């Protein structure tokens, strides 16, 4: 599977870098990508659509001082590449110039996991068959299930990246995912339930996961919510179930630990390395090497091997996440967090798989010791303003906690909190760690696949955005 070199010959890479450096750039990079994707959608009782996509092109950047020039092209001929290199170099002009030849040094890294069955080797009919099974299983979950949407998607993204430091690296990233969304209809209106699996594996995903089980989980989520009551409004203790809470930390502190935002003082965590920022039981890690997890890779999109980086250890802020540019300016190495949505985009600091490790509490005790509050079994998306630390996240499956017991299901809504505050308000941490659903993290208009995970945990107070008093 290591045929990414076929994307561009070493000679052409060198000539393109040469053109990019011709106006005196201090650093130049060429990133060539070939991405193919397939998806199939089952809706309203039938296979509605099979869709395929293909993208192939190169992005070239040139850096001088604080300025980056960037251009991209879908034309991978020498003419197309040189034109893009010249466009990138036009803005980023340095003092020197002339001709430089870069000796390329191929990097090696251990893959987080080997892909067993490339999705492109599986017949489309086999992919479609999974959808019908999921649809039937969801409908069998109860007569109130009125709509089922099932989606299968796979992608294979090969890239090659080379830069004027001599780095030459490539990766071949395969992802396969499956999701089911259900609508349940009852006297109180309609409710939705959703479940998704996704891994950096091929079609062997379905040896590990049963799509019918997945469909039943989605259906039961919608059915349960038919009895949902309005969520409360205001501050209260919030218990987050295992696997469900990763997005909380992704928003509450993950983004604030990205070196590009820290460098602009647009993070509440700027200048706080070495400080106690959370309860001593809290250790938060960003790990691009976790086998098969949605945010895993051998190399980041700047040719740096994926790494396991501890961000907060026993409550103490240990480090930020870095991409190549920010790391160069700080005189250190990248932490392997330089990512881009595709060749049309500049890389920046991004998370991979971000998780909060196990504590020692029994999850049942955490619920039992909560007098009144909210239990969130599944979180939806979130959003953060890193400069203020305020963040929101949605609860897509949640219940009231009354007298230490989980009671009525709640209607959907957002919760809001402040990142640094929430870190100090974690007052219980379970011993039942699990990774959550695959996610797409959006930042400055670019989406990249990420994973997250947590054990069951409690935040002493968060503001719940419901309508009940």
């Amino acid at each position: 599977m290591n045929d990414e070199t076929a994307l561009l010959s070493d000679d052409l890479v060198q000539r393109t870098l040469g053109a990019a450096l011709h106006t005196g750039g201090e650093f130049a990079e060429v990133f060539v990508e070939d991405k193919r994707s397939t998806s199939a959608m089952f809706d309203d009782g039938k296979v509605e659509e099979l869709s395929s996509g293909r993208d192939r092109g190169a992005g070239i950047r040139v850096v001088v001082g604080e300025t980056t020039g960037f251009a991209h092209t879908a034309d991978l001929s020498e003419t197309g590449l040189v034109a893009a290199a010249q466009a990138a170099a036009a803005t980023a002009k340095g003092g020197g110039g002339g001709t430089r030849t870069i000796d390329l040094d191929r990097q090696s890294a251990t893959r987080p996991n080997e892909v067993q069955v490339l999705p492109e080797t599986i017949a489309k009919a086999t992919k479609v068959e999974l959808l019908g099974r999921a649809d039937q299983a969801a409908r069998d979950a109860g007569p109130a299930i009125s709509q089922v949407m099932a989606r299968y998607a796979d992608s294979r993204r090969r890239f090659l990246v080379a830069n004027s430091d001599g780095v030459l690296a490539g990766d071949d990233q395969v992802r396969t995912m499956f999701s089911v969304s259900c609508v349940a209809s009852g006297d109180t209106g309609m409710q939705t339930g959703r479940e998704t699996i996704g891994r950096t594996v091929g079609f062997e995903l379905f040896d590990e996961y049963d799509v019918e089980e997945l469909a039943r989980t989605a259906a039961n989520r919608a059915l349960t919510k038919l009895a949902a009551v309005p969520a409360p409004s205001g501050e209260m203790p919030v218990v987050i179930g295992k696997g469900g809470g990763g997005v909380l930390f992704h928003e509450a502190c993950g983004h604030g630990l990205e070196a590009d935002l820290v460098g602009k003082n647009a993070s509440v965590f700027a200048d706080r390395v070495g400080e106690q920022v959370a309860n001593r039981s809290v250790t938060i890690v960003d790990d691009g090497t976790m086998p098969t997890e949605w945010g895993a890779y051998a190399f980041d999109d700047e040719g740096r091997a994926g790494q396991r980086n501890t961000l907060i250890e026993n409550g103490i802020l240990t480090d930020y996440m870095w991409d190549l540019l920010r790391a160069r300016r700080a005189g250190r190495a990248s932490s392997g967090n330089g990512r881009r949505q595709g060749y049309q985009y500049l890389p920046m600091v991004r998370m991979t798989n971000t998780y909060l490790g196990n504590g020692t509490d029994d999850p049942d005790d955490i619920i039992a010791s909560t007098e009144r509050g909210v239990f969130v079994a599944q979180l939806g998306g979130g959003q953060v303003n890193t400069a203020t630390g305020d963040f929101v996240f949605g609860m897509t499956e949640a219940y009231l906690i009354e007298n230490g017991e989980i009671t009525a299901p709640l209607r959907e809504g957002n919760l809001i909190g402040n990142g640094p505050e929430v870190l100090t308000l974690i007052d219980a941490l379970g011993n039942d760690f699990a990774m959550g659903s695959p996610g797409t993290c959006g930042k400055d208009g670019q989406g990249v696949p990420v994973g997250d995970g947590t054990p069951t945990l409690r935040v002493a107070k968060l503001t719940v955005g419901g309508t009940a008093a």
Partner: protein
Amino acid sequence: MSDELLALGDRLVAAGEAGEQVEVVLAQGTGTSVRAYRGEVEAFTSATSRALGVRVIVDSRQGFASAGSHDLDVAIDTLAEARDNASFAEVDPHVALADPDGRPGADIDPWSDAVARMTDAERIALAIGLEAKVLGGDARITGVRTASFGDGSSESAIVSSSGIRVAGRQSHAAMSVQAMAGSGDETSTGYAYDGGRDASAIDVDAIAAEAVERAVTMLGAAKPDSGKVAAVFEPRKTASLLGIVGGMLSGDRKLRGRTPFADRLDEVIASPLLTLIDDPTDSRSLSADSHDGEGLATRANTLIDRGRLATFLYDTVTARRAGTVSTSSAVRSARSTPGVGAQALIMHPGSGSLDDLVAGVDLGVFVYALQGLHSGVNAVSGDFSVGVEGRMIRQGQLAEPIREATIASTLPRLLLDISAVADDREWLTSGDAMCSMVIDGVSLGGS
């Protein structure tokens, strides 16, 4: 240039086999963006993009494939891939391409030659100038996270075996800035943006002033008490809300029972103060277009008429399924099959100014920013709960700033609870035209 797109479309449609319906969508564009930081260019991007989408229908089965290239060999491969995909879809008698309906498209050319005449030095000067204006706007401004300028132009064409053959072009320019203000350990932010067909449509001073004012005003913001309040939305915030409502009025959602308004046609679903039209034929809208995503001439569709649900929106397939005709509401990119959606939502103005609205509120929240619209709003169940930053309104006066709070209701409730609409209709960069409004009785979640 459009001729080249049409020619490639013709060629692919001609490559269709007997019994096949083929639709080709082509788009290409160029763009430039500048990000300024500390008086320098932080990043300068020159972009060119191409996209191709091919839909094949054979024996009532539909397949789709797309690519980021217009190379002929790639295009032929994409056609073959779409054909192959069609063979795995199930038979659906409603699947069809749009048939030309003989209506001419509105005379719209959303284009300015000024984009092509602008130099990179001018673009850079605008971005750096915006940052400088914000930094110099108030002593409490501590920095700018991003100040950016971007512009570009694009062309597109749709050609099909059913006789659709249309092309269009558009230009655009936009600027945005996020200001940071500080006092002690506290940081607050203010975001502002503007856009138009070219840079001359952008009021740089106004963006700078708004970002500064918002950031500085938010200093000292605290979490409010929970309770029932009125919420005042400016035109841009109204657009966020009514944009979601527009999506809920898609005929596709109605047919599949995925909107709480599914069975409410001709019934009152909103305050009589609300009239909402989807009109991409209005050239004042930045998303004005003579044709929809299937190449049918666009038209004005009244969605909500003085509170009454007047129509749902349909594309060709959805209309066939519902036994009606398309409202020319197909929205898509070249990389996807058509979906149904609003294209240019235009609200009828009410009376009075934004100040008048505020003066009429006894206890309320003036909304500066909404957070989590994607995570706390469910268009199927109607649940609505979003994070909010802004200022309290007390006895008709703007009062203390608030943050880390939520406002919640349900979407059907919000529409009925509109208690005032101002006469300040603004043509927004989103392509919508919206007014300020007041919604009564929302739940404010704080401490």
